[in-house]
């Protein structure tokens, strides 16, 4: 049961103000670029202008001669130490600095180290590289053609095919399709986009020759995993490596992979014995670091005439760029894409994904999408709308007919997932009531008679987060548990450390609230620390909305272990048996005599000053939590758009988001996460793409072309919630950070297509720019 705590204690459900804000509002955050160490020097990367070329020579003489330059490292130099290549998180390998050839525009070719950043940049201009251009492959649909250029000569298999992955019942599904009376098909492209956190990636690598210790300040969402990778790849003893992830200016998945810049800075520091700082520019960030999506998907739904879905068939082509640097659990090369059956009861389904190489930046990572869940949710929600259009059934009604009923949870999907809990209909009802759905449909009818374009889009998504149980999940072999260590001080205050790493999610507050909930110690009295691998317990980091489901759970479990010991101490102090004691947040009291009580603070003091015989001193615990299952947050988003027929511009009139993430720790923080994620979804739907021309030149390689919405473009978000706790989580929470990015693209696209569906339009690919819309209107003869 969840006890109620007072606002002063600030346990579950209290919208307490964030503890971490104080330093940020004063400009006293400690981000990687703020780190300044004595004797520190700067690194600058030389990058390839060509998408595909032989590397004939790298001439560093002029660069080395520039006063202030300490070193220029090339691929050949690294090759001598067996470091020219490094493993990726997908069991592929990636060049750290190019040898032999380059495979994407902006690929790392040489690393210059100099006394200051300007000199390093000057020297980078003096590095002379000779290339011989090779034919470029940018269309993934051509990657497997017989005549296609072979990109990865380092692999045994001389083609551009990375993997084929499938799940489900192919035969059974095909049979259903053969007999189906209704079939709807959609080809939906999820364009390549980029998380673009406001702080770019970077590090300060500091090898201290006197202590043999390497400290790396790093923009890392997973410091422990990175430490282990550095130890294995670099051959440095792991106890001599310390990764410190200080304040991180946004991650969104961009700061999970290991980038060549980190490795080069480490090598430079090991070689020079001084701290080496490497901070990438925004252009480098957009052009070479982990991109997201780039999925070419086809979905087919077989249904009966009432719209009851009978089967789902999905085929996807995944463009991974030059190296498969995707960060996903080992057994899932396409991440958790098989959640593509969504919120619907489907008797059978089949899904296959093929990954290919192209001459583009390597990846792709999970950009706020829990391993490809955005792609999956987008696909099924688009397909359902296409089916609704085909059958002329209202899209909300069609969903209602197919939702997994609340009574059927836990629900085993035909693609292998056991959804923990859900109540899709309740969430949708709340959203539709809030937006006034029937009135909107009537308004749309009226507007259509006058030739005006207005659309309503629904997205009833199911998320799958909190990776994950040890029996199925690991990254590079490391199981995806997570951890918490809590220590209570004599004066009743506490410090808690976790294996996750916040990049803005408010962990210093929310984790403290979990401790407050479980132990009754005010959240204000609990210091939360993450990110220093020398002190925090081992964890897999923060991404894929996993912190609350894994470390949050570990925090509760560790606190409960402490409570067990506290009970023993209380029994000793109150001279009674443990069985006589009752707990309420903050104290144990004798059943029937509430005045005979000991507060947690008194118990803590006793743990150091009046220790019961036979018991160890201190009051602390560690928990490594192996989640029994993933969690399945869900929701319904409804978007209303108006289209300007003269310009093709789409205006979001209203957006209602109903989210269900189970029990909530801090509703203020949850709401903030929803606002942020919806804004990212808006950007993806309407204004973002990283594209490549036929020569492999990046289009969208800076903020001139890769657009982020400002406060002016961003609409007002209306949020609400339902609460369907997770039955297996210690306090019923599910995690929510990614739901808005997962669920919203379909809502936006469905709304735009809905606005023109009466003209026969069935699908428009993202990004839905005014130009694209205007062309559709022109084709249909309705431009203003």
């Amino acid at each position, binding site marked *: 049961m969840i006890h109620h705590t007072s606002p002063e204690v600030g346990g579950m459900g209290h919208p307490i103000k964030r503890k971490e804000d104080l330093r940020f509002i004063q*400009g006293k955050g400690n981000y990687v670029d703020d780190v300044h160490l004595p004797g520190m020097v700067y690194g600058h990367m030389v990058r390839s202008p060509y998408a595909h070329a032989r590397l004939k020579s790298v001439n560093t003489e002029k660069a080395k001669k520039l006063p202030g330059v300490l070193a220029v490292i090339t691929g050949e130099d690294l090759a001598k130490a067996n470091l020219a290549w490094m493993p990726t998180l997908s069991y592929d390998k990636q060049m750290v600095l190019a040898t032999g050839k380059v495979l994407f525009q902006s690929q790392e070719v040489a690393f210059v180290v100099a006394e200051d950043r300007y000199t390093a940049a000057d020297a980078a201009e003096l590095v002379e590289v000779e290339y011989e251009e090779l034919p470029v492959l940018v269309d993934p649909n051509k990657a497997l053609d017989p005549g296609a250029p072979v990109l990865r000569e380092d692999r045994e298999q001389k083609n551009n095919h990375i993997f084929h992955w499938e799940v489900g019942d192919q035969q059974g599904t095909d049979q259903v399709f053969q007999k189906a009376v209704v079939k709807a098909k959609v080809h939906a492209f999820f364009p390549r986009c980029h998380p673009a956190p*406001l702080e770019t990636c970077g590090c300060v690598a500091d090898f201290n020759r006197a202590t043999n210790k390497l400290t790396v300040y790093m923009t890392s969402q997973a410091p422990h995993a990175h430490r282990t990778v550095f130890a294995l790849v670099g051959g440095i003893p792991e106890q001599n490596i310390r990764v410190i992830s200080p304040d991180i200016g946004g991650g969104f998945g961009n700061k999970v992979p290991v980038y060549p810049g980190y490795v080069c800075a480490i090598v430079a520091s090991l070689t020079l014995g001084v701290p080496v700082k490497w901070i990438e520019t925004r252009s480098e960030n957009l052009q070479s670091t982990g991109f997201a999506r780039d999925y070419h998907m086809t979905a087919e739904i077989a249904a009966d005439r009432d719209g009851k879905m009978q089967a789902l068939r999905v085929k996807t082509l995944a463009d991974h760029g030059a190296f498969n640097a995707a960060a996903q659990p080992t057994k899932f090369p396409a991440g958790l894409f098989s959640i593509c059956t969504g919120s619907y009861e489907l008797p059978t389904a089949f899904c296959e994904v093929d990954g290919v190489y192209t001459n583009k930046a390597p990846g792709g990572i999970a950009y706020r999408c829990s391993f490809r869940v955005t792609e999956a949710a987008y696909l099924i929600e688009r397909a359902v709308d296409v089916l609704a259009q085909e059958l002329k059934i209202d899209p909300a009604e069609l969903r209602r007919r197919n939702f997994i009923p609340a009574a059927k949870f836990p629900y085993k999907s035909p693609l292998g997932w056991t959804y923990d809990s859900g109540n899709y209909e309740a969430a949708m009802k709340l959203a539709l009531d809030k937006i006034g759905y029937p009135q909107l449909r009537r308004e749309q009818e009226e507007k259509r008679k006058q030739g005006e374009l207005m659309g309503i889009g629904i997205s009833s998504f199911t998320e799958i987060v909190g990776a994950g149980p040890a029996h199925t999940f690991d990254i590079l072999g490391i199981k995806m548990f997570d951890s918490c260590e809590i220590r209570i001080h004599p004066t009743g205050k506490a410090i808690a450390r976790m294996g996750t790493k916040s990049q803005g999610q408010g962990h210093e507050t929310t984790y403290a609230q979990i401790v407050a909930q479980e132990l009754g110690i005010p959240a204000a009295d609990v210091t939360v620390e993450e990110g220093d691998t020398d002190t925090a317990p081992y964890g897999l980091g923060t991404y894929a909305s996993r912190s609350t489901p894994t470390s949050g759970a570990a925090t509760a479990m560790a606190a409960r272990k402490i409570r067990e010991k506290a009970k023993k101490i209380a029994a000793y102090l109150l001279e009674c048996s443990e069985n006589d004691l009752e707990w309420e947040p903050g104290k144990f009291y004798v059943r029937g005599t509430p005045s005979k009580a000991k507060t947690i603070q008194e118990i803590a003091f006793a743990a150091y000053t009046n220790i019961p015989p036979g018991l160890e001193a201190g009051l602390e615990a560690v928990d490594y939590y192996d989640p029994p299952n993933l969690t399945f947050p869900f929701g319904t988003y409804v978007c209303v758009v108006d289209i300007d027929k003269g310009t093709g511009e789409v205006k979001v009139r209203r957006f209602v988001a109903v989210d269900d993430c189970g029990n909530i720790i801090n509703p203020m923080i949850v709401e903030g996460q929803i*606002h942020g994620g919806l*804004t990212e979804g808006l950007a993806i739907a309407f204004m973002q793409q990283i594209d490549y021309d036929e020569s492999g030149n990046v289009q969208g390689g800076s903020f*001139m072309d890769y657009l982020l919405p*400002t406060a002016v473009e*961003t609409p007002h978000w209306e949020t609400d919630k339902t609460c369907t706790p997770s039955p297996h989580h210690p306090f019923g929470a599910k995690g929510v950070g990614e739901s808005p990015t997962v669920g919203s693209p379909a809502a936006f696209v469905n709304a735009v297509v809905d606005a023109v569906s009466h003209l026969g339009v069935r699908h428009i690919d993202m990004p839905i720019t005014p130009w694209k819309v205007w062309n559709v209107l022109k084709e249909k003869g309705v431009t203003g």
Partner: protein
Amino acid sequence: MARKQLVRVKVNGREREAEVEPRLLLVHFIREVLELTGTHIGCDTSHCGACTVLLNGKTVKSCTLFAVQADGGAILTVEGLIKDGQLHPLQEGFKEEHGLQCGFCTPGMLMSSYALLENHSHPSEADIRWGISGNLCRCTGYQNIVKAVQFAAGKMAQGGAK
């Protein structure tokens, strides 16, 4: 390499000076020479506004100015908002209204909002959104930042510390 030049500025009320290369960007001058790291760098095309400071009373993107251009001027950075240990109403507002998550855009947002409130003591929501349109944020979706500025406007109108 061009000869270094002397730059004299008043920063957050204090006189500071240093010899710098003419090509040194103002943002690097602030962060590395003056060691005030609250002002951040988020892009390389002058779009993001994380580097926003006030120069002679006007907001500027310090990544798009040379330090020598600020010579003789007065700079206000985020570190200059707090007075005698008292948070500025804007800083309070950002905390009260959850106007920040990762905190990276926050200094720039604070400086732009500061300038906005100097010119509009009762800004409408549209005024605020336009006022911060030169500052990008990836975390908050701007909604709570608007509330934070409204909080500050309200507090300042009541005669709170300016």
